[in-house]
Every structure is written in C-alpha cells, then in structure tokens.
C-alpha cells in the first residue's frame, strides 16, 4: 500500500488513541467526519440517517481500534465500516423513501442564479431517485466509484470483493443506471404530456361553457 502523508498522520493519531488519548480520537473524527458522512449518504440517501450511520461508524472504530491493521490506510477501514453500516441500515429500513432536497437547498451559500441552482437541485433529486432503485450491491459500487471517486482497487479493499467483481458490478451498475434513467425520463415526459392535455381539455371546455 502506498503510504501517503495523510495515512502517516492518521496512523500517528491512532497510536495516540491507543495510548489512551480521547482528544486524539476527537481529532481523528474531525478529520474524517465529512468522508464518513458522504460515504453513508451515497448508499443511504437520507442526510439524517447518514449522520447517524457515520457517527455509529466512529463508535465502532473506537471499540475496534486495537485491532486496526497498520498495513492499511485508516480511510479504507473507515469506509469499510461505514459502508457496512449503511447497507445494514438500508436492509433494516427497506427502501429509501423520498429525497430530502430541502436540506440541500439550505446548504447552498451562494444565492446567485437561483434558478440554475434550483434546476441543479431538481436534477440531483431525480438522479438520487434513480440511484436508489438500483440493487444495493450495484448502488454501493457505483456510489463509491462515480460519487466518491475511489479506485476499483480501493473499492475492492473496502468491500472485500475481488477487483474483477468490482469492475463487473460497475459495468452492470452503469448500464442499469442508464436504463433506469431512460425509463424514468419516459415516464416523466408521459406524465407531463398527460397533465398538459388535461389542462388543455379543461380550458377548452371552460371556453365552450362561456360561449354557450
């Protein structure tokens, strides 16, 4: 495993934790809280649930810290625990219902071009809906690769599946996402056409009523 500076720093902090420093563990949490949150969110799709999953991941890390394998990067281990917990959450809660788009609306600090921002948020919500309909094993690999930007090798280390299986699932996931998106778009356009037709009928019957 190539040792990055971040990995070295994490290992130093972990050693301080193993010497009994809870302050060091707080530092470790603060360094990686965003990473854990996003890893959970990519799978779970709900911000509050993802925060809970990410916190639980750190609690598990604390309890298992003495078993940490210093030949691996801490981030790999954290991803593994977080993704496990996120999938566990999904299985307990069946399907994710809805998208908490309002939470993300509040998160935007830049209020310029609000229409563009709104369009982007709507698109994100639609993408989330399609992603949530993928089978969890394909969703997980797709989320880790295309949303978190992890390599196939990193995903293999995190999930414990072979590199070849990662690439196969990625292949299937991207195809399924594309097909699901096409179905979603077709349905959406059909719904819009029906709505337009109904409005047109309603206004023409109003006109007919007025004329008579």
């Amino acid at each position, binding site marked *: 495993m190539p040792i990055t500076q971040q990995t070295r720093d994490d290992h130093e902090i972990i050693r301080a934790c193993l010497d009994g420093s809870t302050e060091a563990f707080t530092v470790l949490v603060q360094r990686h809280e965003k990473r854990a949150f996003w890893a959970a969110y990519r799978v779970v799709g709900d911000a509050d649930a993802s925060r809970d999953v990410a916190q639980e991941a750190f609690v598990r890390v604390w309890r298992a810290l003495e078993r940490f394998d210093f030949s691996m990067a801490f981030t790999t281990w954290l991803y593994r625990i977080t993704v496990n917990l996120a999938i566990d959450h999904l299985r307990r809660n069946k399907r994710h219902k809805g998208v908490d788009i309002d939470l993300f609306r509040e998160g935007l600090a830049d209020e310029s071009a609000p229409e563009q921002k709104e369009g982007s948020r709507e698109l994100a919500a639609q993408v989330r809906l399609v992603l949530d309909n993928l089978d969890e094993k394909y969703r997980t690999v797709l989320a880790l690769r295309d949303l978190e930007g992890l390599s196939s090798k990193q995903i293999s280390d995190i999930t414990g599946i072979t590199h070849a299986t990662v690439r196969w699932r990625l*292949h299937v996931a991207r195809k399924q996402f594309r097909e699901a*998106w096409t179905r979603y778009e077709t349905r959406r356009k059909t719904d819009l056409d029906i709505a337009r037709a109904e409005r047109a009928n309603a206004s023409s019957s109003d006109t007919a009523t007025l004329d008579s």
Partner: protein
Amino acid sequence: MLPLHVGGDLDPRHGPEVDAHLNNCLVCFAEFRELGAMRSRLAVLAEQPLPLGILDGFAEEVMARIDVGEPGPAAEAPSPGPRQRIFSFQKLSAAAAVMLVCLAGWRAFNDQGLMSDGTSAFLRPDLSGSVSDGVPMQRQQAALDGTQLPTAPSGQLSAQAVNEFLETTWPLGVPAPSEVQIILRSRGGVPTVTLHGQASKASGLERDGQRQPRQRNR
C-alpha cells in the same frame, strides 16, 4: 466494455481497440455518449454541498455516544498491540473449533445476549443477501483464527460486542458458514474469548450445553 470505458475503468490493453471501434460504429458511439451523459448526471449528485449544519456537533456527539464506562483501546487487557489477530490455528481440547461470521443484519444471540465464562453458543448467521464473490471462506477463517474479543469487566461477552467485532472485521460479500460456535474461557484469571476456525454443522442455539431454538435479536 463501454460502461467501463466511459469511466476509465477498462483494462488499458483494450482501450485503443475500443476507441478504434467507436470511431467506426455509430450505434456504439451513440451508446457511449449516453453513458457519458449518465456520468455527468451522477456528477451533479457528487457536487452537492453538505447540508447546512449537518455535521454541527458531530465529533462531540460521537464522544458522548462512546460509553465512558467501557474501556477504550489502551485500557483493554491484555492488549498485545495494534494487530490483535493471531493467525495460528489453536486446537481446543474441550470443544469443536468454530468461527464467527457476521454479515450486515446478522444477529448473534437471543435477547438475553450474554454468555458467562465456560459457556458456549452455536450461532446461525443470517445469510439473506449474502453473495459469494469468490473470496475463499477458508482464507477468512484463517484470518480470524485465534482472534481475541474484548469482554466486559465482569467477564461476560455481550452479543453486541460480538456483532460489532464482526461487522468491523468481516468483509462484505464473503459467504458465511452455516453455523459457528463461540467459546468463552478464562486464562490465568483474565477472561478472554478466542475464536477458532471451522464452522460447526450443529444447528440451533445452545447455551450452557442446552440446545435452544435460535431467537433473532433485532
């Protein structure tokens, strides 16, 4: 190949061949473009900012959730060091060698959930959703052989501790054995639990030598 090529995940040896084909095949090129558009849509999701305040007080809450009564890493005894796994297989004279496996959603014990020194329990992992991905189970067994689990100061092992240990250790997708056994025994007055490798073929949940129907601990 196209779904992999669009993300740069194709084996580099095949890249030039695929590119040459795309230059000559309108159908494949159109599909390649659609897949590219799909990745652009995913990128919109990847660029979302953090919800405002979602991580406020995150670290403080984590530290509050950690049970201060529960020993942290340095207080655990005995503690051989960061790499706790003992890879040698240890034969037990008193009981069959077994192994614990946990997949997400698996629950090890019934609601009472506690074992005392000298007891054993057979556990049936929840295999729903498990997928075999070709990683040999035996390799995982060997990796966990002899691993020591932390016990509470009372010497008792909680189901929660076992589940958490496995959930942080067991890789996703590796098939679980049909059943495993945990043995809790004392060494020199210090309570320890040792896991050993081979799945037991017994079924049901047994505590204190009495076989009982397994109850799910949700």
